[in-house]
């Protein structure tokens, strides 16, 4: 059974994230219509590099074991590659993003690794008996992800931009193996001014909420 404190923590994190979603959506709906810039290429903050430290949350399992949700910290850097983007009539741009994310997974009680073995009767191939797990343990774990993504931005409004991010991430479990994970995310920024924005990213392997500094 999940402990009450753990349940509350999970609920609190999810509630906070959901609230952030609705605040973003609500604010966007009210303000964006009057000052749209999506059809005016180039009307956006000028920058060549975006630095975005963020906090992370993921409802997804770790790449290679049942883990429950996770949380962590990270940073993302994005170089602007195509200021004019792929669509000439739209205010879009394309960047190359790379980052470093650390995520800790608490593990799930009742799901994890075996920490005690016994043996059933011997069979061919198992002269000493077939190993049978008699005690399991939840297994917390920490991962480091190094994502590399294409960031496709759409500059909707003076205060708002959204982006999609497909890519790949090298992953490493502490004390364990390396692997490669897909990365895909959709995100949005609320621009306080031309240099600073609040950035929310939803996707796999994790969601993030951070502050972008545009240089």
């Amino acid at each position, binding site marked *: 059974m999940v402990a009450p404190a753990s349940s509350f923590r999970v609920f609190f994190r999810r509630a906070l994230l959901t609230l952030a979603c609705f605040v973003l959506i609500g604010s966007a709906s009210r303000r964006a219509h009057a000052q749209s810039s*999506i059809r005016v290429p180039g009307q956006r903050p000028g920058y060549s590099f975006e630095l975005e430290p963020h906090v992370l949350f993921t409802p997804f399992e770790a790449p290679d074991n049942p883990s429950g949700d996770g949380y962590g910290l990270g940073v993302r850097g994005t170089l602007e590659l195509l200021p004019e983007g792929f669509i000439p009539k739209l205010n879009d741009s394309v960047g190359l993003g790379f980052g470093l994310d650390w995520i800790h997974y608490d593990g799930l009680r009742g799901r994890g690794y075996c920490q005690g073995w016994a043996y059933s*009767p011997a069979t061919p191939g198992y002269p000493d008996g077939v190993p049978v797990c008699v005690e399991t343990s939840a297994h917390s774990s920490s991962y480091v992800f190094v994502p590399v993504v294409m960031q496709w931005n759409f500059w909707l409004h003076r205060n708002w931009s959204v982006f999609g991010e497909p890519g790949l991430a090298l992953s490493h479990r502490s004390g364990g193996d390396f692997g490669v994970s897909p990365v895909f995310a959709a995100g949005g920024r609320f621009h306080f001014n031309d240099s600073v924005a609040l950035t929310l990213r939803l996707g796999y392997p994790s969601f993030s909420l951070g502050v972008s500094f545009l240089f």
Partner: protein
Amino acid sequence: MRRVLAALGFFLICLCCSIGCTSGDNCSSGNHCECSGGDQCFLGCDGDGCDQSCHNMGTLCGTTCGDDCRSQCHDVGTTCSQSCGSRCGLECSHVPTCGVLCGDNCLLKCHDTSACSAQVGPNSEVTCTSVDTCRVKCTGSCIVHCADTGCNITCGETAPATECEHGRYACGGC
């Protein structure tokens, strides 16, 4: 522009809902707990009466439980491991090797495997179907149904079970 924002809003709401509606696997007494995908997984149970299912795993699947549990293990690359206390219902199938340890009044079904190896407690019943090697050790009275070749049923460490009729073995009297 309104349509774009509406579509974006709908997408975000759906994502948010999917976060809030995610149900956790509850491996606790009386609940269903499942594990599938990946390389290996071991399910435990906080108490008795769990309903466990471990399947479609690359290498190993295992379940452990107290009393009055149900466990299914199938479609695993190498081995299914199942351990349980009293009055359990276990099923193991479509895996090269099943390894089972359970207590009294155990009901075990092994089918479509290369090898089924089990140690069961008193008053248990085991059925092996389409199994190349069915190796059962009964620590008390038991009934074993094994119509295939490769049946090796013992009472205690070495005493052979009585074959009551073709494909039906017993320890402690037919």
